[in-house]
């Protein structure tokens, strides 16, 4: 459970806020996607949820952020770190660089929690399995391909089983099947009721297929909030530079050509597109 009330934030030395008067409630067990163009404030939101703002980045923060019912600004940072797991936009920054093997790297965060060795081994193995790096267990975390490193970074956070999971473009270097699998895994974790998920993503086809909700941020402010398929079909969201599926783009092209029925909903997913364009073909 997360709640933001009137949050406005400016980085030190900047005059224009990176987030403007943002209010949000994300209930426990929800999978909420955050979409928006670059510079919209998505990473800034992730930093606020994880307490990097204001604990590491100072600047000016107004409003209130509550995590699991407690004020994030006054909660001891250690407690917040255990509650919120953040997968960073650049996986390289997530790797400690001090571990010789992938499995030790993934176990790194668990070491300080006083968890019995057996449980630790089991959790690390499960996390590696989930992101498909079991075969890399004994490899050096620094001698990996980009996508392999991103998988390790994801596993190193999942293994902590945080109550709140924040993922900042976690599939940016994953192969297509790997990307879909991460969405699927996150979907399952949220559905099990164990985790509240906030996932920043550009892959809107999978946002529409897997997330409960999408919020569109533009220029630091909330532009749209709702069911992903609904949000992704909104014209102002599209005009603000949020990605669209090729299905939606094809429908928009027909619209431009004057061949789209007025008021007909734009297809966002493959299933919707199949129905819509089948009907279109029949009509002709």
């Amino acid at each position: 459970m997360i709640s933001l009330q009137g949050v406005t934030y400016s980085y030190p030395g900047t005059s224009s806020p990176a987030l403007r008067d943002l209010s949000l409630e994300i209930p426990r067990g929800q999978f909420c996607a955050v979409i928006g163009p670059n510079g919209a404030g998505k990473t800034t939101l992730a930093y606020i949820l994880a307490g990097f703002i204001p604990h590491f980045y100072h600047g000016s923060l107004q409003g209130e952020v509550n995590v699991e019912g407690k004020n994030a600004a006054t909660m001891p940072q250690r407690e917040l770190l255990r509650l919120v797991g953040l997968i960073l936009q650049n996986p390289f920054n997530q790797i400690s660089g001090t571990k010789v093997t992938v499995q030790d790297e993934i176990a790194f965060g668990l070491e300080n929690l006083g968890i019995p060795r057996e449980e630790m081994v089991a959790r690390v193995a499960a996390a590696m399995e989930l992101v498909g790096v079991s075969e890399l267990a004994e490899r050096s975390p620094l001698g990996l391909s980009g996508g392999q490193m991103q998988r390790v970074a994801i596993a190193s956070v999942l293994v902590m089983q945080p109550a709140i999971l924040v993922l900042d473009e976690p599939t940016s270097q994953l192969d297509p099947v790997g990307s879909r699998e991460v969405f699927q895994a996150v979907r399952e974790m949220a559905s099990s009721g164990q985790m509240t998920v906030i996932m920043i993503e550009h892959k809107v086809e999978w946002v529409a297929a897997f997330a409960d909700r999408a919020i569109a941020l533009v220029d630091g402010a909330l532009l749209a909030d709702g069911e992903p398929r609904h949000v992704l079909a909104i014209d102002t969201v599209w005009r603000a530079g949020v990605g669209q599926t090729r299905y939606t783009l094809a429908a928009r092209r027909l619209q431009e050509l004057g061949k789209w029925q007025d008021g007909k909903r734009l297809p966002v997913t493959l299933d919707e597109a199949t129905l819509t364009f089948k009907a279109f073909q029949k009509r002709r």
Partner: protein
Amino acid sequence: MIVEKAPAKLLPIEIEVDSISFTYPSGIQALEDITIHVSSGERVALIGQNGAGKTTLVKHLNGLLKPVSGSVKVGSWDTHDHSVAQMATRVGYVFQNPDDQLFQRTVWDEMMFGPRNLRWSAERAASSVQASLEMVGLEHIKEMHPYDLTFSSRKLLALASVLAMDTQVVIIDEPTTGQDYRGVQQIGSILSELNKQGKTIIGVTHDIDFCAEQFERSILMAGGRVVLDGSTRQVLSQISVIDQAYVEAPQLMRLAEKLGWDFMPLTVEEFIHHLDG
């Protein structure tokens, strides 16, 4: 006195990768008997699952890595006989992770680094750098520290610094990582522009929709080998093969399949044209 070389003309340069294999010092074999030929002016995508060997392969094309067996030739130059600095006059490589590439203290110095090494006159270097910054839209932040830029801007800077060297071959590793929709469109049009100038473009990408729209030829890799090599339409149409390689068909092809079409569209325009006759 430094005598300026004549501005690089776009000499046609063929790339010949002849049965190369490569093993990292740690003992991991990343490439196994790869043979490919890329003609001058082609637009080729490398696709395939994480760890397939795509980055390892492209790092062979500018001599950053040398094959354990087999040979790589760029024009008449065998990478075994030429330094990375020499290769850099023919092949520009934009790293997958910009942090591996950027190490100067300002955007401007970062951009000037390559041209300075090529010993271009200050004037020529500055004008090439300016034009390249404008191409990616970063001309207004010359004095900034590269590390203060957002990830997507660092990626664009890494691209611009390669463009500034005006090489015949441009290799770009995961160009769309971290870019938003407009960023992806912008990179697509930069690649088109370079290709119009006659340059050879080799792109590594997981963004299959981007691949379908931007590259005429695709090479699918898996486990250090080439699995498919042909026109992008041919390659991506082999849906079961690419699925096995952890790649998916682009959205419009999946849709065409659902609609029962034989025709496999690569772009929205092609899709609409087929749909609407």
